[in-house]
């Protein structure tokens, strides 16, 4: 078996614990079901059909869903997982809030992103995917930043300067040791999603503080090689950001 950095393996394990636990707006069982659909999308004939279609709006066959989630929600999850570059504001307006609330949507995007990161790593390394975790029982946290507002993204976000001292810890933690870049703000309607995803990001990419410390090379590939890969993967995914 390949030797994986200890901090990287630990970050993946924390991601799986987060996935199993109740979130801000969805239970552990709902979150694991979303993860199962995100995983299933890669082998879904309907997703392949849509990906090959000139327009993502072209009718497709039924998804090969396996979680028992509502079919509209399955479509949303599969589309984010396999055809995200063709999502549009018009699509977003059709699915939120008619299929799910904006808070659940943001949490769902975070779940898909974390599962994508961990699964893509295992696949890249030629290792078997981790089994999805058994859901944990418990209460939803319901943490929503008071100052969330629409500010250029499709979803409400929170700027660091709008966080107040009486916001709960997950809100306070969002920008700790992180810049206010829009990618950090993207999931900020659900602070646990920001904190979770960037816990993973720090281990898989680089912590924010090291991004421009070109004199330090904390990985086995250089800053230049890391950014080469980041740029190429972003372009292959047709992502401007």
């Amino acid at each position, binding site marked *: 078996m390949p030797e994986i950095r200890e901090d990287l393996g630990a970050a993946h394990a924390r991601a799986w614990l987060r996935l199993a636990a109740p979130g801000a707006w969805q239970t552990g069982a709902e979150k694991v079901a979303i993860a199962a659909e995100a995983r299933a999308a890669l082998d879904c004939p309907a997703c392949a059909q849509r990906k090959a279609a000139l327009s993502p709006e072209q009718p497709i066959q039924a998804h090969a869903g396996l979680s028992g989630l509502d079919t509209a929600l399955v479509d949303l999850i599969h589309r984010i997982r396999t055809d995200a570059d063709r999502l549009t504001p018009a699509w977003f307006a059709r699915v939120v809030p008619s299929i799910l609330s904006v808070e659940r949507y943001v949490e769902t995007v975070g779940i898909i992103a974390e599962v994508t*990161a961990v699964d893509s790593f295992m696949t*890249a390394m030629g290792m078997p995917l981790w089994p999805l975790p058994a859901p944990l029982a418990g209460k939803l946290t319901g943490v929503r930043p008071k100052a969330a507002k629409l500010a250029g993204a499709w979803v409400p976000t929170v700027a660091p300067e709008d966080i107040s001292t009486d916001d709960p810890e997950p809100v306070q933690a969002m920008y700790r040791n992180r810049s206010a870049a829009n990618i950090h703000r993207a999931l900020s309607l659900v602070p646990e999603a920001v904190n979770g995803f960037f816990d993973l990001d720090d281990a898989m990419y680089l912590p924010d503080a090291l991004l421009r410390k070109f004199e330090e090379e904390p990985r086995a590939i250089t800053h*230049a*090689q890391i*950014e*080469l890969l980041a740029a190429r993967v*972003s372009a292959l995914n047709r992502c401007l950001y």
Partner: protein
Amino acid sequence: MLLRGSGQHAGQTYDDRFAIDAKTDSGVPHARVLLDFAEACSALSADLADRREAVRNTLGEAALVDAAATIAIFQAVVKIADATGIPLEDAKAEISAAFRADLDLDAFVAE
């Protein structure tokens, strides 16, 4: 933009057209083997195992892990960006305007 910063620090000029044209020689050491691996991972292509071994043989096991981790996290980052519709920050948009035009990257914007 971080690649340019890295190049400036190293006194190198990297050719960032590799992002859209993988045949471009970026000037980054071992770029070819890394880009081939990234493309195989993204496409889940049949030659992924060969591309992985090429990275392992050229750069070593630890580098393979870090390359795989970088590729994997960016497969996820792009989904967050695309699914939330975040815009480029004004400052980044301004300083990257010429670069985006050169590479025709604005064609990636969702409408």
